[in-house]
């Protein structure tokens, strides 16, 4: 089984914090891009049984409906997508009822809507094009169109955000009863407008309080945390994302998209023109130790961590012997748990990079 990722690098307007491979000024390339991606899909050779499909971006729904539908059809024609989890990212106010109906009809069965905040001032600060009301209306339309698996992205650590305003965002989201919530902290990345702006960001203490609040509030409302930033109602986890963390095979189509197939990683050219005219995928053959390092740091992102026995079998190592000093150190500091599985504790999540890097 394979996971399929399709990258749509277009947006109506790029957000102030965004450093993804996406553009709001390359609309003239949309047609050629869609054709190229269809060609790439058609030319793919390998496992054609897909159990997950994920359209991400950018904003896939920023693409004209006909182009988007043609790409969806290309995926459906190429791959066996029956019983597939088929996710599509969408931003409020970029799609209408007909569009949603069409997506649903063509097999898209999971929608991921970027809300980020229920506070309109915060949305404005982020450079989002929509207000909270737009989100609610898109959300309701999606329900009416038949989507019974919806994710909502929210964000904390937004300029001028307070713990109270974040609590309100959580309440508003929970009221709508989405099946899945992704909750990320805002990162100020180099090269984004935010990087050079003088922002009134919540201090670290507050930011971390927001995170802990989200974890417990979502828990109380029936959302099970299964990864550092991901929460879902029972059995509604995003299977596609889990593939990334479990290093299952996936293929990525589109500019800058990555694939992992049997420990070989490919990455398409990032620049749109380059991708369209002369895509030159980078190929990296992962060594056993590369793969093990990835297995550990990705595994540690999951709330349950990863299974030690399975790891030992996969990589032919004695796990505890190999990492004794590190494991003992972090056990002592109460930053990890170590039993059948190894996982980060709540405190460990906060310093995950240090812990992960110690296993590299």
């Amino acid at each position, binding site marked *: 089984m394979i996971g399929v990722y399709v990258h749509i690098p277009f947006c109506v307007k790029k957000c102030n914090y965004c450093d993804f491979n996406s553009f709001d000024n390359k609309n003239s390339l949309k047609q050629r891009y869609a054709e190229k991606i269809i060609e790439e899909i058609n030319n793919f050779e390998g496992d054609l049984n897909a159990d997950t499909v994920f359209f991400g971006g950018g904003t896939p729904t920023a693409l004209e409906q006909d182009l988007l539908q043609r790409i969806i059809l290309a995926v459906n024609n190429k791959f066996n997508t029956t019983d597939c989890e088929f996710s599509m990212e969408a931003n409020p106010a970029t799609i209408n009822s007909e569009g949603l109906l069409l997506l649903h009809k063509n097999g898209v069965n999971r929608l991921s809507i970027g809300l980020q905040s229920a506070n309109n001032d915060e949305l404005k600060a982020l450079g989002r094009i929509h207000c909270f009301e737009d989100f609610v209306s898109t959300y309701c339309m999606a329900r009416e169109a038949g989507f019974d698996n919806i994710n909502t992205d929210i964000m904390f650590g937004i300029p001028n955000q307070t713990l109270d305003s974040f609590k309100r965002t959580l309440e508003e989201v929970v009221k709508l009863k989405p099946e899945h919530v992704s909750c990320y902290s805002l990162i100020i990345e180099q090269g984004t407008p935010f990087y050079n702006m003088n922002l009134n960001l919540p201090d670290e203490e507050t930011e971390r309080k927001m995170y802990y609040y989200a974890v417990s509030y979502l828990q109380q409302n029936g959302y099970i945390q299964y990864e550092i930033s991901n929460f879902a109602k029972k059995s509604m986890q995003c299977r596609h994302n889990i593939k990334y963390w479990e290093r299952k095979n996936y293929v990525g189509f589109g500019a800058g998209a990555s694939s992992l197939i049997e420990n070989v990683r490919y990455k398409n050219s990032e620049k749109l023109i380059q991708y369209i005219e002369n895509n030159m995928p980078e190929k990296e053959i992962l060594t056993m130790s590369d793969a093990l390092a990835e297995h550990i740091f990705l595994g540690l992102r999951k709330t349950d961590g990863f299974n030690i026995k399975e790891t030992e079998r996969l990589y032919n190592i004695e796990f505890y012997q190999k990492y004794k000093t590190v494991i003992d150190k972090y056990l002592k500091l109460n930053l990890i748990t170590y039993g059948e599985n190894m996982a980060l504790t709540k405190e460990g999540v906060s*310093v995950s*990079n240090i812990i992960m890097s110690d296993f590299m």
Partner: protein
Amino acid sequence: MSDNIRNFCIIAHIDHGKSTLADRLLEHTGVLTAREMEEQILDNMDLERERGITIKARAVRVVYNARDGKQYILNLIDTPGHVDFNYEVSRSLAACEGAVLVVDASQGIEAQTLANTYLAIDNNLELVPVINKIDLPSAQPQVVKDEIENVIGIPAQDAPLISAKQGIGIEDVLEKIVNDVPPPLGDINKPLSALIFDSYYDAYKGVIIYCRVFDGQVKVGDTIRLMATGKEFDVVEVGYLNPLGMVPSNMLSVGEVGYIAASIKNVSDTRVGDTITIAQNPAKEPLAGYRKVNPMVFCGIYPADGAHYEDLRDALGKLQLNDASLSFEPETSIALGFGFRCGFLGLLHMEIIQERLEREYNLDLVTTAPSVIYHCFKTNGEEIDIDNPTNLPPAVEIAYMEEPMVDANIMLPTDYVGNIMELCQQRRGIYKDMKYLDSTRVTLHYELPLNEIIYDFFDALKSRTKGYASFDYELCGYQRSTLVKLDMLLNGEMVDALSLIVHTDKAYERGRRIAEKLKEAIPRQLFEIPIQAAVGSKIIARETVKAMRKDVLAKCYGGDITRKKKLLEKQKEGKKRMRQVGSVEVPQEAFMSVLKLD
């Protein structure tokens, strides 16, 4: 005979064109073809070329056909210009009869010019003043001539006006050397006495001795005796040096400068300054050597990776073969592990050794703050020398202490006098006097504690005078002083490698600055880290490195995995450069960052 020999050196302030002039002299005398000519041929080491300074002395022999129709053998002995290398300068000077004094036509006399000139006068050398860089628009040859006469007190009105860069006036310099520098005196019939002025280890020939023959002669097959050690060796090869290497010859005779190879295994057997004689017919008295200069500045040098301790020892040993003024002995630090306490002539010497260790031997080093030698008088009557702050006894056992003082001469444009007096005042300097060189330049004479100038005095001096000040110093004795040991504590644990001995009045300020610097240099870790500066049990400054809490809880998409991995690898790489000090991880840079506080 030795009448046609001229042994000379060139002395100059840094950047006044000594190396360029040396190149031109070699070029003019035709020993180098254009193809062989490489800029600054005497400066062999990469570091020397980059910094434009000469670190080690070299000797080169050339033949000059003078205007009087005679042929002369000129031995040019290159000398380092910097004050730290006075020792090596005096080594070279002892082998010469004359010195070409190069002065920049627009900058005039600088501190190093003076210091080296006085050394040359002490050695009874004939001075040949030369005004260089006359091609520059800002050149003022007449002003500089007058300055030489007024400040140094030697006639300079007929000094050659040259541009080494443009090749102007080179022959005038050669003529001056031939006419003004006296030929070597000496008696070929006397027993051999030759002065060793340098030596180095050659992998094929063993130790190569550079020497100047004062009396007698030496040839292949002779059994030589080194008078200080009494050791005897059979001469395998003698010869002289041209710019491209060694040229064997039959013998070295009175007045000549050259090399001797005698299958000597240890450089330590051939002490620079020692006298070579013939075993069967020895000289009665050794030649007067020259003052041995002892290291003034000390610091701990540790391998960044403890596994390279032996490599560091080997590298230091090899450097010491050619640099007798470098000293080192093993020491241990709780924070840094096994390393060496190294002694240097001065700060530049220290920096150069560190750089050579890193570049030529590929070592990654951690260096502790430089220290000087303090005299510590204990209440029980014992007197000890302290070159490592860690060894200072507890305050209650100390009756009093003394610190080394230097006589410092600072030459600078009058505009900056106020700035520099203030700087010297801050550094606990005692004003001695001020002399006007001319209407725009002065010499400030201060007595300064050595420990105040070993950190960053030179940098401060340069930055406060836009680079116009020059500076020279000489140890002038010890003075009683109220000194304390300043300790730095990380998470409550003292870090021995960061301890310093400072004057009581400076302890608070320095402690505060170091704590601030450490706060910048130490990355946030899993827990909060208090940084404290303490004198005895009294905490005088405190900073805190906040606990790291925030790791971004970001998306981790398929494509981000490579990026995430790179990020973690970078973090891991950073960790490798960390030293575990108790429970705290300290980056190597942190140890260095305390060195520069301005």
